[in-house]
């Protein structure tokens, strides 16, 4: 493997005068290549190539001095509540008192389809994301992501209220 290739100079043309043997300058590079690729492999395996992506989120400023009347109310017809519950289930209802809440999931044919429909039907749709205490962080990120996918312009992360649980009770 690691032999040096030394070419002997064949020609002995010179009649007189001893000439020093010409040594080849070629060096076997195989070990160097080995070393190079070893290091390449090392760096390839240890590197974190892609930086993680982030989702930016703006939360409303918590300010107790704002009076209840000054808060911007959402029209009931524009409001859509999404309740994230345990076992990856989602409940959706419109307005304040929807007689027909929907039970669905996080698939493309589930919540996304409903959102697309509602975005088309309702102007200024405002989505209220209400994760219950049994939901996971993934559920919340998924819902926020759905907002980006379906291009819902106004949405908020709000705590779930007993009233919400009453509405979805019959679906539980």
């Amino acid at each position, binding site marked *: 493997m690691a032999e040096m*290739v030394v070419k002997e100079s064949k020609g002995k043309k010179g009649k007189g005068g001893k000439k020093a043997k010409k040594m080849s300058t070629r060096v*076997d*590079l*195989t070990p*160097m*290549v080995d070393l*190079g*690729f070893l*290091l*390449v492999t090392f*760096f*390839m395996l*240890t*590197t*974190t*190539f*892609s*930086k*993680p*992506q*982030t*989702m*930016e*989120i*703006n*939360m*409303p*400023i*918590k300010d107790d001095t704002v009076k209840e009347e000054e808060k911007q109310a959402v029209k009931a017809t524009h409001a859509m509540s999404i309740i*994230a519950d345990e076992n990856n289930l989602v409940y959706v209802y419109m307005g304040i008192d929807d007689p027909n809440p929907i039970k669905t999931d996080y698939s*493309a044919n589930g919540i*996304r389809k409903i959102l*697309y429909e509602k975005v088309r039907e309702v102007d200024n749709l405002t989505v209220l994301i209400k*994760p*219950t*205490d*049994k*939901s*996971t*962080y*993934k*559920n*919340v*990120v*998924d819902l*926020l*992501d759905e907002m*980006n*996918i379906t291009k819902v312009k106004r949405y908020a992360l709000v*705590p779930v209220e007993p009233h919400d649980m009453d509405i979805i009770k019959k679906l539980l």
Partner: protein
Amino acid sequence: MPKVKIPRKSTLVDMTAMCDVAFLLLTFFMLTTQFKSDDPVVVSLPSSISEIKMPDVNIVTVTIDKSGKVFFGMEGKYNREKLIDKIAENKNITITPEQKRIFSLLSSFGVPISKLPEFLDLSQEERNKPGYQTGIPVDSTNNELKEWLKFAKIVVYETDRSLYVSQLFAIKGDGSAAYPLVKKVMNTFQDKTLQINKFRLVTNLEAAPPVQK
């Protein structure tokens, strides 16, 4: 028929080109590499279609693992040195220069402040032993995360005033972490004394679904 002599060819190949390629790649990887930080916990991030990259400098990350422990991490060795100074000053703990040096090398940690000096005296293996780091308390009665964030915000602000400080805080949560804890962390961010209302959620990239009309 006369025998056709096949001239013996040398099996030696010129390695120069290959060597060039190898070292070119090596240089590339050496320059682009960022070593994986030895986080005390592994989190499996949820995925989203968001393509905003995480900034490199001055970012402050709060990690939530699936068992509900909260870890705190800050980028930058000098920032961490400043941070530990401020914490030591305000929380009445004494930090030796050696402990400070070790702290400045920690990418993320999760111990209560009272246990911090003891924690920094341990060896790296002992520190990263699963179960040793119990997480930073975030309860309403004892919210140490708030203290860390408060001083981190000051440190970041001292380093670079031009930065949009509020965008430098990120939550790196495990997908299966329970939401109430995440809510607690978010509420800590939004605490009146901190006012971090704009922050980031670290996610993995997933392909965006086709646009529906």
